[in-house]
């Protein structure tokens, strides 16, 4: 009985430990290279956010300025002057690190498939980050004065925080379905093998 339970648990522990080890190793490596990635990523974000804000703003009040890996949003206040509205530090885009680490740790993916999924996931995350910046700025403008849009701002924040997990799940759901089924089938088989003769369940 005890042996059966131990067998069933070990069926999950082994792949889970492997997943955790690869995740942590990838996280360490990515954290080291992160300062080098953050700058070029902010440049790419700046190049897309500027026309995106231009497209959604009728009066075009926003000015996008990049300072290293930080994105600053200013607002025209007349007379050719601008005032800072909000800034996004490099950690606004931190989700690249856990997303890449999760993709590297995902079991059962061939290299080609893993590469394609990684490219797709990064493109999706990039779009989420652009949307996050644009929507945050527009909500700030809309909320100014007596109008409170805290609920919407919170929703945007939650979506931003959930993005790496959501995108990872979307791009690896098929692989996980296969893996979970395999682990569970393996656990059941081991349980049957470990259970004493005549024992039920």
């Amino acid at each position, binding site marked *: 009985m005890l042996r059966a339970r131990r067998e069933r648990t070990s*069926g999950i522990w082994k792949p889970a430990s492997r997943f955790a080890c690869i995740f942590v190793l990838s*996280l360490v490596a990515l954290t080291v290279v992160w300062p080098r990635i953050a700058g070029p990523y902010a440049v790419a974000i700046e190049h897309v956010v500027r026309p995106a804000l231009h497209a959604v703003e009728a009066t075009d009040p926003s000015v996008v300025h990049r300072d290293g890996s930080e994105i600053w949003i200013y607002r025209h206040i007349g007379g050719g002057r601008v005032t800072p509205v909000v800034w996004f530090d490099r950690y606004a885009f931190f989700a690249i690190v856990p997303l890449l680490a999760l993709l590297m740790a995902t079991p059962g993916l061939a290299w080609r498939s893993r590469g394609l999924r990684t490219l797709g996931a990064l493109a999706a995350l990039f779009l989420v980050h652009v949307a996050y910046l644009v929507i945050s700025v527009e909500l700030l403008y809309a909320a100014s004065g007596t109008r409170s849009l805290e609920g919407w701002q919170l929703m945007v924040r939650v979506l931003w925080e959930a993005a790496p997990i959501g995108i990872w799940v979307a791009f690896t759901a098929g692989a996980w379905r296969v893996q979970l089924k395999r682990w569970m089938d393996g656990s059941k088989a081991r349980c049957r093998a470990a259970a004493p003769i005549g024992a039920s369940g």
Partner: protein
Amino acid sequence: MRVRGWLRLRGLVRSRRFWVTGALFLGTLAGLLWVSGSAGSMAVIQRGLARITGALLNILGHSASVSGITVGTEAFGISVVTACTGIFTLGLYLLAVIAYPCGWICKLFGVVLGAGGVFLLNLVRLISLYYVGIHMPQHFDVVHQLVWQSLMIAFVVLLWLFWAGRWTHASRKA
């Protein structure tokens, strides 16, 4: 194949469990958004976490004092803001547990496991950030924003995998 999928979907939509699970999922989402958006509720959670962190730091030999949501010593102080409570990560985990097809007892166990796990890991995170702030202040931002955020994500993924692989299987057998 397509007909079989359609029939399966029709059967799913007609089942009571589908609607109860859907309602529970949306209710949990609305509840989490309400709690995280409510200053009063969040303040209670933040102050509670600050007090427990302060007590743990005192046990570890630091003379920590707690003032509202800020806990600190003469050397360093940390404030427990909304994002530091782990409510967003826990929310994602809870939604994944509710959406997974298994029995209600199993879901309840998943909720308790997640809430306890995220709470404990968050305490470890707060204590470790205090030590990082004292001994390696130059790395505080990276550890706070990058490393711990990523570890929390990996933790809830692993916890969910463990729960889905171990307990949902066990409850189905029962």
